[in-house]
Each structure stands twice: as structure tokens, then as C-alpha cells.
């Protein structure tokens, strides 16, 4: 492009204004009102010149965007890693605190609101007061600060979604967010939290759904205490017409009058929030600010039962009291309110039982049950074993040559601590984990010793017998069944074999038959750990028996440690167990540990390995997977589909389901598919196995939705229904089926959600099938918000975005899903398939999707 000569003529000096401006720029110039004022006061040519240049900079900023005021990547000790939400007062980010190595929620106040130095002071006071509030239902504030001109404070990063999201979602569906008694119970906690704060002289001042967080277990958590005081929103300026009708809804009459706020004002706002959650409406509502204010001061609130006829009378009374115009007529404190709310909650049994995740009590009972069932057996065995070992050694010593004996003894003691050969009795672990069995000629020390003993043998066959006991599969048919994933069948065979062995009594035993018994117990434990049996207690008992028979054996030790893990085990505790096992493993044993762990963290999905879905949380799985990545050198992340389990039980179930889908219009085919599915469930899957969730799939195919509702009376039943529905959405469900079952599914989902079950995956699929991708996107966004490290959530949202033609953001979600997945390759394949579908549909975005698809498919 042409233009003026590159340089100014050599004789033109830099003007004073040039230099001065250069100086300002060098100092990291930011146009501010103070500077402008100073320049205007200064007056004169130079000052005008500078002002002019400042205007140019403003112009540039306005065109190019707010480039200068970007939030830096780092605020002090915190590194911003994600966006959690945008609120009225600022934005909440996810941040990583370097010094303490933890993730926190970082709320950064909008700079426009915090320019006033008095506000900074107030901010500090409030944050300090907040940090001293410790209550179960108050979101902990960790700290606060200021960096790069932004005020921020940090809070605990909890999983959960703010209540206003729930309310909005519910409104979208034409429902209320909570059942009355459930709401009463949950808000009792919040009332108690307010009481706690009030006792310490702290008012919240801004209680509303946006400041209440719903945690995954359904409990509520109050956040942002006192913040509105900092930014000056506590006394409403009525002059700002229009801006305030929203916040006015939660304002108390005294607040509207501009009077001093008291604890009763917080309780008023809580009442409005509670009212809204159970009914979907506001107690006082109006179109304009004036009308709203008038109603607030002069009109009576709408009684709850007018909008929600079946609400408990008690709740109506409580709310009415709380919504009194005179603060003195409300509850004296949060505590008494909490008590009343609790009473309402406990009063009558609800139609749907409250969901309760395994509580501490349940955990303890379960553990005791395992112990008590096996203690009798264990004690008996121990006594017997000790006695007989002594006997055996004495006899043999008297009869055989010393060398033979010592080799044999060495072999036996070695066998106790060796991990065993993958294709030997301990190879059952390989059966479980799908590890490739090592080649047969890989020797172990035990086999080596036995071989040498055999050379010494003089008509002696024990070494050979022990060798075969060490190598041979127990009950070959059972192993074959295990390889096919037919755990029930395997267990039946093993039950028979064990009964036979045990019935021979415990006398005249030698090391060979102890080895045989060991293998049988181990095999049965493994059978119990398959998905189709899922009998954790039975497995634990058998492992205990196996480890008594072979005290130092490693395989039972690994499996026991892992079987005893609970769903609520923290990821770090889990990793500690992993570390310990690896550390204690004998040579070659660490490969076994890693194999089992890899199996443990694999996601369970149709057609995948037939493993018991140990009840680990996704967070725990991912931590272990990362740990495995380090320990196992990347082998951990290889897809498990390449194992011999591709033909497991779940594949058969999925096949039957698919045939059911295909047969929706063909009654004969449909009936056949249903028969097959239910037969598999009846014969191959134990009653307590999580795979029984597949029955829900077949119920839906059959249209037997009332049957589903009947199941939802218990927590376990509810969970099974939700799991089953999620399974359904992972298959290729024809839209027709979803449309047909929509009403029934809505009821089912409503009940499930009221108990706090996550149902987003199902809803997303439902909306997509019903041709409403925007609604599906909203649901998917909720899901992402609730479970931010779930690859499936991002993948679902990517699909919605693809439907809506939002190519770039679909790309981000796709990348995010792949990055978070436990099985990245299969997720990538799914994403590419979605893109290809979009390409095939044609339209103006087809080219863009093509480009995207190519780029994702081509990369490694």
C-alpha cells in the first residue's frame, strides 16, 4: 500500500507533545477521568494535543474491542482455568491456586462497580467477615484480594449449579423446581445458615436463587454474603427505573422504603425464594417498578395454596408469616424458622422417597456384614491350616530326602508371594482385566524350583502334582464361561467344585490340594466380580478364604484392597492405595496391579469389557487414570475394546435392544427381541447386578412405563431406572420410540429429578429426538455445568451445537470431550461421526463441518 515517506524529514524534531505522549505510553498508559480533567485544567496547545491523541486511542479501543481491559490469566496466586458463570456483580471463574495446589472458584467483581476506593475498603471488611463464617450450608470463602485493578475473592469450588438455573429449567418445562416438603427440608439448612451468620452480626442482604448453590447431593449452600453492601445495592435507588424489577422481587418492604436492614429482611428474601421454588411463581408480582413497589408495600402476598393447591398447609402458614410487611411479625431468628421447616419436612411420608446416597451408617453395616459372614469361616480355616501345616512338614521330613524337601518347601513358600503366571491360577486376574496372557514359556521361580525338585525325585510325584496345580485352570468350563462374561454360569460350576473339595474334609490335606482350593476360591471371587454377578461381598469372602489358604499370595491382596473401595472414597485415598499396592508388589506383580487398576477405571458401556462397575466416582476414575498414565507409560489409555471381552454379555443385551428398536413396527420381531433380552437378564444376570438396569431398556421398548414408575419407590430402584435410561440414550434409539414414550418418560424424569438424580443426558436425547435442539442445548449446558469433567456432557452439547450450526463452539466442545474422556479414541470417533452426519445433511454449514471433521479425523 502506498503512503507517506517512511520517515519524517530529518530536520523535524520530535515535538514536546510527541515526547510527552511517548512517555505516557511507556508507563503503560490507561486513559482515566482524572488524567483528562488534569489536561483540561492545564489548557494550552500541548495539553490539547495530548487530549486529541487520547481520543484517538479511545476510538481505536472502541473499534477493536476492549483489548486493554482484559482480565489477565493470572491474579496473584491464582491461574484462571475456566469459566463457571457470569452474574450481575461479576464473573465466576474456575482457578488453580498455585501455592496450595487446589482448584477454587474465583469471583471477580466487575471493574466498573469497584472503582470507588471506599468500596475497596468495604470489600475487605465484608470478605474478612465472610471468611469467618463456617457452616455446613454456607459456601466457604477462602480469601480475597486485588490484582490488576480487579477485586476478587475465592470460594470453595463445589460441584453444583446455582438455584436460579434450576428454577429457570423448571420453568421451561412448566414445572416447579422442588416438591414442597423436600424444599422445606433443604431450606431448613439455609435458614440455619442464616441464623449462624446473624448470630455473628453478618447479614446476607441479597438472598435469592442466584446466590444459592445446589450441590450434587441436593443440599443447598448459601454464597456471596454481604456482597451487595460492597457494591452499594442494598438500598435500592428507585430512580433506576427498569433495572430493578428483577431484584425487587426478593426485596423486603423495609428495603424498598430504604430503611435499615435486619436479619428479618434476609428471612423475607428466603421466603420469596422458597415460594418461588415450590410454586414457580412469586408471592408478589407486577410488570413495572412502580406497581411492584406498590404491591410490595401495600398488597398482601398470594397465599401458597392458591397457586399450589396441594402444598402443605403448614408451609403456607410459615411463608405467610415470613412475608409479613412488618419485620417484627416474622420469625425472630433463623433457628426457629429452620425448626419449623424441618417439622414440615418430617410430617408426612412423601410419595417419592427422598434420595439418600450411602450414608456413613450404611457403610459401617456393610463392612461388618462382610466380616461377620466370613469370620467364622476364617477362624476355622486358620486353625485347621496351622495344625495341618505342622503335621505335613513333620511327616514329610521323616520320609523324604532333605534336598527334595527343601526345594519343595522353597517352591511352596515362593508360590505364596509370587504374583503367579498370567495363564496359571492367578491368570484369572487376566481373565478379569483382559490383559494379554504372557507366553507359556515365561518361567517363574516356583516352576523353576519345582523343575529342579522333580529332577531329584525318586518316584516322588508331589513336585509334578504341585506344578500342575500351580498351572492348571480350575474347572475349565468355569474359565471358559468367565471368558464369555457369563459370571453366573461360572459361579455355579465353581460352587459345585468347591463344595466337592470342602466336603472331603480338612484332614489328609497336602500342599497340592491347598493350591487347588486356593485356585477355586480365587476363581469364584473373580466370577463374583463380573458385571453380571456383581457380588462384592461374596468376592470379599472368597478372597479372604484364598488368602488364608495361601497366606502371602498377592492376587487376593490386590483384589481385596480394591473390592473394599467405596463410592465415596476420595481420589487421593484411592491413589494412596494404588501406590501402596505397587510398592508392596513382588517382582512382576506391579504389572498385575496396573492391569487390575486399568480394568477398574474403565467406563462401562454397551459392548465394552465385561467388568464389574466398581462404584467409583468419575473424578476418582480420572485421577487413577492419570496416575496410571504415569506409572504404566501410556498403556493405560489404550482403548479396552481390543480385549477379548468385546463379545461380553452387554453386547448381547445391546444387540437384543437394537433388534427391539428395529422391530417397533413388526410385532413378531419385537416380541422375539424382548424375549431374548429378558431371558438373558433372567438367566445370566444376577438380581443384584447393575446390569439389571438393562431391564429398563426393554421396559421402554415394550412401552411398559407404568412398570418403571412402580420401581421408583426405592432409592435403588430409582437409580436403576435412571441408569437404564442413560443406557437407552447411548444406543441408537429411534425418535419414534422416544416420542411415543414422551409422557411416561417425563413423569419418570420428574420423579427422578425431585430426588436429585441427574437426568440431563436423558433430557438432551429426548429434546433432540423431538426436534428441539435449542432446548437440548439448554439441558446440555446445565449438564456441563453440573458435571464439568464429564466427556459425555461435552459431547452431548457438541451435538446440539452441530444441530444449531454453531461450528466453532461445537469444535471446542468436541475437543474438550476428547480431552476429558477416559477413552479418547472412541470419543473422537463419535464426534467425527456426528460431524459426518452434519456434512451429509448438506446446507450452508456443510463445508465448515467437513473441514472440522477432516481436522479431527486426521489428527492423532
Amino acid at each position, binding site marked *: 500500500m502506498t503512503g507517506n515517506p517512511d520517515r519524517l524529514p530529518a530536520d523535524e524534531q520530535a515535538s514536546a507533545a510527541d515526547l510527552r505522549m511517548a512517555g505516557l505510553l511507556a508507563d503503560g498508559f490507561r486513559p482515566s477521568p482524572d488524567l483528562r480533567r488534569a489536561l483540561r485544567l492545564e489548557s494550552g496547545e500541548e495539553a490539547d494535543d495530548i487530549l486529541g491523541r487520547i481520543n484517538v486511542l479511545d476510538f*481505536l479501543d472502541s473499534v477493536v474491542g476492549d483489548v486493554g481491559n*482484559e482480565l489477565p490469566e493470572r491474579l496473584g496466586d491464582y491461574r484462571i482455568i475456566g469459566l463457571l458463570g457470569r452474574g450481575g456483580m461479576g464473573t465466576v471463574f474456575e482457578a488453580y491456586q498455585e501455592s496450595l495446589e487446589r482448584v477454587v472458584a474465583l469471583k471477580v467483581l466487575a471493574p466498573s462497580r469497584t472503582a470507588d476506593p471506599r468500596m475497596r475498603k468495604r470489600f475487605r471488611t465484608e470478605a474478612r467477615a465472610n471468611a469467618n463464617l463456617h457452616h455446613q450450608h454456607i459456601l466457604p470463602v477462602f480469601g480475597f484480594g486485588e490484582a490488576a485493578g480487579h477485586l476478587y475473592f475465592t470460594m470453595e469450588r463445589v460441584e453444583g449449579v446455582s438455584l436460579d438455573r434450576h428454577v429457570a429449567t423448571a420453568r421451561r418445562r412448566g414445572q416447579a423446581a422442588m416438591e414442597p416438603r423436600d424444599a422445606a427440608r433443604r431450606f431448613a439448612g439455609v435458614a440455619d445458615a442464616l441464623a449462624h451468620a446473624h448470630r455473628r452480626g453478618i447479614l446476607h442482604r441479597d438472598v435469592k436463587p442466584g446466590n444459592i448453590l445446589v450441590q450434587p447431593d441436593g443440599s443447598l449452600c448459601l454464597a456471596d454474603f454481604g456482597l451487595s453492601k460492597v457494591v452499594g445495592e442494598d438500598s435500592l435507588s428507585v430512580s433506576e427505573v427498569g433495572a430493578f424489577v428483577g431484584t425487587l422481587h426478593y426485596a423486603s418492604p423495609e428495603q424498598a422504603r430504604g430503611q435499615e436492614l435486619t436479619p428479618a429482611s434476609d428471612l423475607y428474601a428466603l421466603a420469596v425464594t422458597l415460594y418461588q421454588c415450590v410454586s414457580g411463581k412469586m408471592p408478589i408480582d407486577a410488570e413495572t417498578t412502580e406497581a411492584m413497589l406498590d404491591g410490595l408495600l401495600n398488597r398482601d402476598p398470594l397465599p401458597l395454596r392458591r397457586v399450589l393447591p396441594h402444598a402443605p398447609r403448614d408451609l403456607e402458614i410459615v411463608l405467610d408469616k415470613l412475608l409479613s410487611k412488618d419485620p417484627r411479625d416474622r420469625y425472630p431468628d433463623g433457628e426457629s424458622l429452620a425448626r419449623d421447616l424441618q417439622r414440615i419436612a418430617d410430617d408426612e411420608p412423601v410419595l417419592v422417597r427422598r434420595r439418600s446416597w450411602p450414608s456413613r451408617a450404611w457403610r459401617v453395616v456393610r463392612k461388618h456384614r462382610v466380616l461377620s459372614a466370613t469370620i467364622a469361616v476364617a477362624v476355622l480355616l486358620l486353625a485347621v491350616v496351622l495344625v495341618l501345616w505342622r503335621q505335613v512338614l513333620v511327616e514329610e521330613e521323616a520320609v523324604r530326602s532333605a534336598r527334595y524337601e527343601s526345594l519343595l518347601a522353597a517352591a511352596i513358600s515362593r508360590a505364596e508371594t509370587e504374583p503367579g503366571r498370567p495363564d496359571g491360577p492367578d491368570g484369572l486376574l487376566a481373565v478379569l482385566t483382559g490383559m494379554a496372557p504372557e507366553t507359556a514359556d515365561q518361567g517363574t521361580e516356583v516352576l523353576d524350583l519345582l523343575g529342579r525338585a522333580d529332577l531329584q525325585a525318586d518316584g516322588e510325584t508331589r513336585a509334578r502334582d504341585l506344578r500342575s496345580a500351580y498351572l492348571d485352570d480350575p474347572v475349565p468350563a468355569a474359565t471358559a464361561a468367565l471368558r464369555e462374561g457369563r459370571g453366573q454360569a461360572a459361579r455355579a460350576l465353581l460352587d459345585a467344585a468347591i463344595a466337592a473339595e470342602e466336603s472331603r474334609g480338612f484332614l489328609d490335606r497336602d500342599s497340592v490340594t491347598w493350591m487347588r482350593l486356593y485356585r477355586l476360591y480365587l476363581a469364584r471371587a473373580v466370577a463374583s466380580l463380573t458385571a453380571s454377578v456383581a457380588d462384592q461381598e461374596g468376592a470379599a469372602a472368597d478372597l479372604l478364604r484364598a488368602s488364608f489358604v495361601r497366606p502371602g499370595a498377592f492376587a487376593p491382596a490386590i483384589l481385596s484392597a480394591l473390592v473394599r473401595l467405596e463410592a465415596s472414597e476420595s481420589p487421593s485415598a484411592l491413589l494412596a492405595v494404588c501406590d501402596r499396592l505397587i510398592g508392596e508388589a513382588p517382582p512382576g506383580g506391579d504389572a498385575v496391579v496396573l492391569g487390575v487398576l486399568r480394568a477398574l477405571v474403565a467406563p462401562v458401556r454397551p459392548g465394552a469389557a465385561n467388568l464389574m462397575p466398581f462404584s467409583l466416582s468419575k473424578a476418582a476414575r480420572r485421577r487413577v487414570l492419570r496416575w496410571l498414565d504415569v506409572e504404566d507409560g501410556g498403556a493405560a489409555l489404550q482403548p479396552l475394546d481390543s480385549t477379548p471381552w468385546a463379545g461380553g454379555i452387554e453386547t448381547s443385551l445391546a444387540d437384543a435392544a437394537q433388534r427391539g428398536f428395529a422391530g417397533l413396527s413388526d410385532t413378531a420381531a419385537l416380541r422375539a427381541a424382548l424375549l431374548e433380552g429378558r431371558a438373558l437378564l433372567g438367566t445370566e444376570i444376577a438380581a443384584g447386578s447393575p446390569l439389571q438396569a438393562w431391564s429398563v431398556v426393554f421396559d421402554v421398548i415394550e412401552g411398559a412405563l407404568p412398570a418403571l414408575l412402580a420401581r421408583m419407590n426405592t432409592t435403588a430402584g430409582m437409580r436403576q431406572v435412571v441408569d437404564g435410561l442413560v443406557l437407552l440414550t447411548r444406543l441408537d434409539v429411534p425418535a419414534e420410540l422416544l416420542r411415543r414414550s414422551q409422557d411416561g418418560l417425563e413423569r419418570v424424569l420428574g420423579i427422578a429429578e425431585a430426588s436429585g438424580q441427574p437426568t440431563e443426558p436423558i433430557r438432551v436425547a429426548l429434546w433432540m429426538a423431538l426436534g428441539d435442539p435449542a432446548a437440548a442445548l439448554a439441558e446440555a449446558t446445565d449438564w456441563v455445568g453440573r458435571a464439568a469433567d464429564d466427556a459425555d456432557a461435552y459431547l452431548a452439547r457438541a451435538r446440539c451445537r452441530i444441530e444449531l450450526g454453531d461450528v466453532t463452539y461445537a469444535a471446542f466442545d468436541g475437543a474438550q470431550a476428547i480431552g476429558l474422556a477416559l477413552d479418547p479414541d472412541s470419543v473422537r470417533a463419535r464426534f467425527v461421526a456426528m460431524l459426518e452426519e452434519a456434512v451429509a445433511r448438506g446446507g450452508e454449514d456443510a463445508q465448515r463441518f467437513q473441514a472440522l471433521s477432516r481436522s479431527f479425523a486426521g489428527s492423532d
Partner: protein
Amino acid sequence: MSLTPEVAFERYRERLLSVIYFRMGPDLRTRMDPEDVLQEVAIEAIHSWHTLDDPANAGAWLVTLARRKIARILRDQVGVAARDPRRERAMKTDFPVADHRTGPATMADRKDRLVLLEQALTRLSDDHREVVMLSKIEGLPAKEIAERMGRSENAIHLLLSRAIKRLGQELQL
């Protein structure tokens, strides 16, 4: 724990669009949609995200990606353009907005200002234009600009100061 491409892209989106828009120039913009380029940059960012060593440099890194992409496009396009005698000279002034947050009034206003700015920039000397681009549109720190333009940091500040003055004259502000 690290910065995700999505968050980074969200934060620097404005800047990237500006860079792409200006660096493409009116000719290229008749042949390609800046939004397509933005998408390609986004994809490239996703795939080469692991090469970003320090999340603090995400902004500069993304801008570099954008510049490289455009440079590549320009190289490829040169041959094509030379061969086509019937080049449309209609200037594409639509500022791409996939973001639905800003209302239509602001956007139109912005479009006008964008056209003005681009025209004013063409009338600057190469050095002045470059320093404004690097500093105000790409947001590079003075140190880097100094390196790229082969001058001292002080010289850059002075150059920018003068460029702003000249720009003001061209814009008649």
C-alpha cells in the same frame, strides 16, 4: 489443570477478529469470509494447544496463529488472484459477528468506524501503520514490537505517539 482453548478463545475473540480483519485486507476479504478464517484458527488452536508452553502467553500465541494462517492464505491466493482478470473490487465491510451479545445499533456503528479506521490506516506510512497494528490491534507488548521492527523500545513509544497523532489527523478527530 490448565487453561482450556475455549476459555482462551472466548477472551481473545475480539482481538483475533480484529487482527484477521485487518491483516486480510479488503482484497482478500472479497474472496474469504473472516469468520471462516477465525474458525480455522480455532481448530488449529485446539489441535496444537499442547505446544503452548505458558498459558500466560495464550493471547500472543493465538494472534501468531492467526497471522501465520493469513500469511499462508495470502501466499496461496496470490497465484489465484493473478490469474483471474475479473476481480471484484467491492469491499467487504461486514464485520463478522457470531456473538449475539451486541445489539444491531452498536454493530452498525462499529462497522462504520471500522471502515473509517481501515481507510485511515492505509493513508499512514508503513511504519506508522505497522506500529498501530502491532500495538493496538494485536496487543503486543512494546518489547516485542521493538524486536520485530528492529528498534529500541523508546523509539517504539515515540513512533506510536506520532502514529496516533497522524491517525487522528486522518480520522479528523
